[in-house]
């Protein structure tokens, strides 16, 4: 056995089902081991290393299990950076194995040599350069452990070619040894903090639950439902928290934040207690930090101690796993009288509903609304980044955990389509819809080959306005409508392009055709299909809280006056 075979054997033992990747010189021994080792691992060749990372990311978000990425050194590793960063920002477990030059050439500018370890430090949960063949199984076991426990994240293992090629004579099942990493403590919750939270809750008149990604990762959806229904407490969710609490539920307010629903943001402004379960108070949620929830007490449940007090002051912090924390909290709470509070919020729901104009051209909102109606929320939806993403978050009400996959923290364009490929591999029987814009789609559309080859029935819904719409929206609102670098003149014919890959294509040009053609696409399962939807260019996403403004300053409709340039955040 050589080092490379030890790598594949170890990954197989850990239960890794898929490796997404791209071959190359420094990874040759590892690619060879994929052929010589009898394992259950399936290797999927992407068309670009970034795509491979997003596939592994989508797989993990759709299943809760990590996948691996295998690429070569230098440019191969370099192309993974955006994908790794995306996973790190959203706490997604991932193992990235990069080939590397032979150890004696490191630091000598050898062919395809890059300091992958150094380059990736800021975008990983952890990384390691393995210098001894016999240390490989331990490095991989530790990487898996780190990636999947505590607050999950990507872990990179850099493997020089001689390390993977040399004979392996070590232990294939070594003990892990991580004296500085103790994720098991997250299952032990300080009961005093739970008592303090229960005490705050007992006095609340206008409580609000903020459900984040942490609740989903912890598998706390049942405990969250119990908390909300016991307290008769409304629930808003973050972009990544979509699905941890069913958005069609009576107590659900949908997403909050910059493009959240008006009623969710009004609830944040008017609540007297905010119970944050597993959200890191991202700047696109809180607006101006010191004015956020200024009249309310704040309970913050988070597995990562460094998130407590990072953005927002807290009155009670519960540090640990959300499922364990909520289980303990649920034992100590009693129903609250919230009839008036819920009535107030219902009033806001009626007064400021999400809506769109049905005249004057085809709008993305209509497409997303109709796809929600057609699927009944029973699909996995991935998105890219931009206007279509925010409208999808608004109009597609996610029903269950792991059914919504979107790049939140990193805001990575090009994410949606490859993530959908990964999601479809992870959940083969499920309808998977990639909602993408014409901008982001073109960043990774080479993966059409990957999707076509494996006959994955991914629906690629290209909401095509021939513009980088979100940036154009900001230029319209804050830069005197001076359009700069946003016109995607030169877009290809996406249906013809799909056909060139052997992929089925649909065009939607009229509002009246939307439902009919979407249904055809949903019924087409012989492979991927691209639905190109020609949308109007000038539509803007509302509600909107300009970056760094307070939630009270939310714009529910287009402003009548010129707006000052936002100075907080981006």
């Amino acid at each position, binding site marked *: 056995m050589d080092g490379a075979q030890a790598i594949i054997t170890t990954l197989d033992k850990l239960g890794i089902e898929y490796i997404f990747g791209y071959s190359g010189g420094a990874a040759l021994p590892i690619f060879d081991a994929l052929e010589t080792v009898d394992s259950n691992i399936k290797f999927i060749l992407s068309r670009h290393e970034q795509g491979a990372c997003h596939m592994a990311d989508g797989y993990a978000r759709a299943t809760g299990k990590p996948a691996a990425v295998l690429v070569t050194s230098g440019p191969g590793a370099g192309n993974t950076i955006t994908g790794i960063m995306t996973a790190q920002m959203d706490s997604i477990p991932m193992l990235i194995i990069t080939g590397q030059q032979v150890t004696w050439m490191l630091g000598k500018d050898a062919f395809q040599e890059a300091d992958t*370890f*150094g380059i990736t*430090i*800021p975008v990983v*949960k*952890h990384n390691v*350069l393995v210098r001894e063949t016999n240390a490989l199984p331990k490095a991989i076991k530790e990487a898996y452990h*780190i990636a999947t426990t505590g607050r999950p994240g990507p872990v990179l293992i850099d493997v020089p070619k001689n390390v993977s090629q040399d004979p392996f004579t070590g232990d294939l099942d070594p003990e892990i040894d*991580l*004296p*500085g*990493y103790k994720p098991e403590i997250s299952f032990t919750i300080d009961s005093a903090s739970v008592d303090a939270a229960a005490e705050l809750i007992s006095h609340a008149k206008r409580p609000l639950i903020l459900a984040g990604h942490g609740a989903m990762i912890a598998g706390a959806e049942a405990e969250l439902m119990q908390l909300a229904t016991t307290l008769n407490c409304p629930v808003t969710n973050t972009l990544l928290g979509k699905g941890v609490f069913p958005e069609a539920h009576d107590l659900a307010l949908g997403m909050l934040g910059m493009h959240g629903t008006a009623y969710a943001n009004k609830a944040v402004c008017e609540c007297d207690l905010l119970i944050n379960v597993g959200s890191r108070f991202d700047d696109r949620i809180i607006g101006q930090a010191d004015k956020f929830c200024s009249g309310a007490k704040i309970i913050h449940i988070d597995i*990562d*101690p*460094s998130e407590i*007090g*990072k953005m927002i002051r807290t009155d009670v912090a519960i540090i640990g796993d959300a499922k364990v924390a909520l289980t303990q909290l649920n034992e100590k709470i009693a129903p609250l009288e919230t009839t008036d509070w819920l009535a107030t919020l219902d009033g806001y729901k009626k007064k400021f509903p999400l809506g769109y104009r049905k005249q004057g051209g085809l709008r993305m909102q209509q497409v997303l609304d109709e796809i929600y109606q057609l699927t009944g929320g029973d699909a996995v939806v991935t998105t890219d980044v931009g206007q279509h993403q925010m409208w999808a978050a608004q109009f597609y009400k996610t029903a269950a955990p792991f059914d919504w996959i979107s790049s939140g923290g990193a805001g990575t364009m090009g994410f949606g389509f490859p993530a959908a490929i990964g999601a479809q591999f992870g959940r083969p029987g499920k309808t998977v819809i990639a909602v993408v814009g014409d901008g982001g789609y073109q960043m990774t559309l080479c993966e059409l080959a990957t999707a076509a080859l494996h006959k994955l029935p991914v629906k690629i819904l290209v909401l095509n306005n021939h513009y980088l719409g979100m940036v154009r929206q900001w230029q319209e609102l804050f830069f005197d409508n001076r359009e700069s670098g946003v016109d995607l003149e030169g877009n290809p014919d996406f249906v013809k392009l799909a056909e060139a890959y052997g992929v089925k294509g649909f065009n939607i040009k009229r509002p009246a055709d939307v439902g009919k053609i979407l249904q055809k696409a949903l019924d087409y399962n012989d492979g991927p299909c691209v639905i190109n939807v020609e949308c109007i260019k000038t539509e803007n996403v509302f509600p909107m809280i300009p970056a760094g403004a307070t939630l009270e300053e939310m714009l529910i409709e287009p402003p009548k006056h010129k707006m000052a340039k936002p100075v907080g955040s981006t």
Partner: protein
Amino acid sequence: MSQTIVTTDTKLPPRPDILGGHTLSMLVNNQPGVLMRICQVFARRAYNLDSVVVSKGRDPQFSRLTLGISGDPAGLDQIIKQCTKLIDVIHCYEHQEAHSVTKELTLIKILCAPTERAEILQVLEHFNAKTVDLTETSMVAMVSGDSDKVDAAVQLLSKFEIIETVRTGKVVMARGDTAT
């Protein structure tokens, strides 16, 4: 002094704000790259490292790290949490001067004629300092102690021609049975 001496020191460096600074002590895995990870936590958040002392621990699996830092005190708690979060960091503590022993060592090279030696030695004696090198034209003094004492010694010796100072940076140890 008619000789031309290349000096790497300015004559009177602005007094470093070590008094108002903070001292962090870390126990970390003794592996390549660990210092890189830690430095990135500080650089990203605009903290300056005034001093860094790293040495192998008694158990060679670990290293000891003492950092003198200056920066916005409001962000310090976050910095400590971010460092603690690193897989290679076993622990990271801040130590207040009142509850810890903080020492550093400084070598000071002074250009001096034999006629000036007596006065310099008098100063050194006061600070319990020693001469560790002596030539016809120069002298290297070694001062150790807390940062204040080292500052004061450098200050007093500044009337002579100091051509170089090299400071180890602070090392810290918690008093009593508290872990460092």
